[in-house]
């Protein structure tokens, strides 16, 4: 983009001066922005009719806005993860096609006609439901974030990946339509000694997680829609479990079975994985809740400042597994001084929140940070504070403050600061 500015008067003068020449030459171009002075093809010719795109997709100019993988992270893409392009999004809702994916045996393509949900174990009646049966329960709608416990896990030992998509993109935030898990369990009648629930998926990993009954009856949902439409296959079509505020691995996709028991099962994803190893060699188990966290999505390494000094919009997202985010602070100098950001959009518990900070950039280097406060009073810690109590081998639950360094050209980089 040119930095040259044409005043209105100057523009008019030029137009008038060239006006005569234009008339003489007949085909000469008018002065000014060709996006205005030339008739664009879309302003002249007809576009596709209504049936050309029965299921709408984004503009071809948005083709770069996609989930991305970090190939070296895992042995095989079938049991792997990709990342939501947070730097390309705004507001609080993640579009369905951009919600990050984590599979343990690839995407299971279930036939809804063959879908069954079984409840067994410590219940009065062991039951089987079809999808049609589930559609006869009362429904609820809730917006919740789903964050993988390993989100930002590659950053424990220091700044590693250049882009909030890769450092923070194992999260999405959508509106779910579903049934309160408690309603479904009530049909089977949970026995009084039933204190735990095992949720199991129908994919080739038969994913299982143990969930305490208090949580199951508190706010868990058996969901079948996301953002108004059927769950995407990669998000568990036709039915997934929603475990608000708790780590994403527990939100079992392709949900096929709920077993009630009197103790947890200690399966692979709650022993070998999703336990947090501390520096002394001991590990925390059942670290379900996601701590408050925030990240600046623009500017960031994949979304540098392209316009030079002047009015600049800084924005980002924040969330907490324990409630809402009433406040986010922003620092431009690596945490020496902070200002309260402007919260905007809906503030819903266990949902993403959007914040903005508009400022006049003078073109000097910046060290950008954001710090979330949640409704319990908890304040997002620095990475150093987190490492001091957790060591560097935790993998999971890294909610430390992220720093982006911006140079004079507006280029952003993932850094750590003293």
């Amino acid at each position, binding site marked *: 983009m040119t930095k040259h500015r044409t005043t209105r008067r100057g523009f008019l003068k030029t137009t008038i001066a060239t006006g005569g020449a234009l008339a003489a030459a007949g085909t000469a171009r008018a002065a000014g922005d060709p996006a205005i002075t030339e008739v664009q093809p879309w302003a002249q010719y007809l576009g596709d009719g209504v049936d050309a795109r029965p299921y709408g997709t984004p503009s071809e100019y948005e083709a*770069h806005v996609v989930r991305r993988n*970090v*190939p070296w992270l895992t*042995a*095989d893409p*079938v049991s792997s993860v990709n990342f939501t392009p947070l730097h390309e999004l705004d507001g609080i809702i993640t579009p369905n096609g951009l919600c990050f994916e984590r599979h343990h045996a*690839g995407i299971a393509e279930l036939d809804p006609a063959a879908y069954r949900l079984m*409840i*067994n174990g410590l219940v009065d009646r062991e*039951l*089987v439901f079809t999808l049609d*049966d589930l559609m006869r*329960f009362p429904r609820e709608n809730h917006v919740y974030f789903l964050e993988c416990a390993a989100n930002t896990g590659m950053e424990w030992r220091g*700044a*590693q*990946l250049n882009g909030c998509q*890769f450092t923070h993109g194992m999260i999405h935030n959508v509106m779910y339509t579903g049934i309160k898990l408690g309603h479904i369990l*009530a049909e*089977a*009648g949970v026995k*009084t000694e039933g204190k735990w629930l095992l949720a*199991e998926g129908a994919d080739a990993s*038969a994913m*299982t997680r143990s969930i305490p009954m*208090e949580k199951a*009856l*508190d706010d868990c949902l058996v969901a079948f829609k996301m953002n108004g439409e059927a769950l995407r296959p990669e998000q568990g079509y036709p039915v997934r479990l929603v475990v608000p505020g708790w780590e994403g691995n527990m939100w079992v996709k392709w949900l*096929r*079975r709920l*077993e009630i028991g009197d103790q947890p*099962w*200690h*399966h*692979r994803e709650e*022993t*070998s994985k999703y*336990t947090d*190893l501390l520096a*002394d060699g*001991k*590990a*925390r*188990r059942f670290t379900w*809740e996601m701590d408050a966290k925030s990240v600046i999505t623009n500017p960031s390494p994949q979304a540098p400042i392209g316009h030079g000094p002047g009015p600049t919009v800084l924005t980002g997202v924040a969330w907490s597994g324990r409630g809402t985010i009433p406040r986010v*602070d922003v620092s431009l100098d690596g*945490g*020496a*001084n902070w200002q309260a950001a402007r919260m905007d959009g809906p503030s819903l518990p266990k949902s993403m929140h959007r914040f903005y900070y508009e400022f006049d950039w003078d073109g000097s280097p910046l*060290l950008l940070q954001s710090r979330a406060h949640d409704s*319990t009073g908890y*304040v997002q*810690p620095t990475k150093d504070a987190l490492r001091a*109590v957790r060591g*560097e*081998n935790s993998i999971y639950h890294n909610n430390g403050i992220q720093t982006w*360094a911006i140079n004079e050209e507006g280029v952003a*980089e993932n*850094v*750590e600061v*003293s």
Partner: protein
Amino acid sequence: MSKFPKVLFVLTATVLGSAAAADTLGLGREATPDEVAAWDIDIRPDGAGLPVGSGSVLDGEEVFAEQCAACHGDFGEGVDRWPVLAGGQGTLESEDPVKTIGSYWPYLSTAWDYIHRAMPFGEAQSLSPDEVYAITAYLLYMNDVVDDDEFVLSNENFADTRLPNEDGFFMDDRDASPIMASADACMTDCKDSVEITMRARVLDVTPDQDGAEEMTEAAVTEESAEPVVDPALIAAGEQVFKQCKACHQVGEGAKNRVGPILNGIVGGAAGAVEGFRYSKAMAEAGEGGLVWDHEALAGYLADPRGYLPKNKMTFRGLKKAEDIDAVIAYLASFE
């Protein structure tokens, strides 16, 4: 659980109460015992859920070599980035902890349950209970939990077999951590100086965005330039190929994994993919002139072990001739 406020317990009791009061919609139907048995395969640390059966360390070594070693290595050391299953004792406090069944996992039931429900990768729930007992026994042996190779693991002695790190775990206590305390956040002059201590660019491990885009374009071009064979057969073959995907890649950007790349395999020489470590049997067959024409490939896919004894492919084979034809058509669409 201390993390739940008292209000929640009251709420819980209320909901449970209403469930017991038969205040229900009457939806769903009773599950039959056979249905419950088909899906309820989970195992707990106390051994609840285990089927009757047994397997020895020596049996396990054999099954492991055939079913597991391609990814996990002959001694559980892990090939490429596949999980390491043995060793690592004494590393949990180090900078590079190696979390294996012997060094980290608290309960043996976790291994039995996981192997039974999800392994081998790409052919889940194909192992018999005795095979799972045998593999689990071999894992105990590789991890020095048992040192007798005559050891037999069964549903009888399962709960008595403990793993070394059972006491290495404790309940989430983040609530008690000092950084969880609500604090007044400093707003001005919080630091004397700020220095950059680490830069991601130095590591340079961020995926290249341009590379990814080029790949997509190339893949699209290739697809559109592909006529000749019945597209329905190729599409059917793509479905069949799902069984192969755990180990093999095909198409633009394919890499050798547990199995070699399959681009150009139809009509190509056996054992000839560059950079792949073939079994002796496959390498020799290639040197002996074996070419993967339709007939040879069909024979191999029907019975990999029978067609070429001692080759490394652990796949059991495709039973249906139409599946074999379809997958060959699919593979032939990649040069």
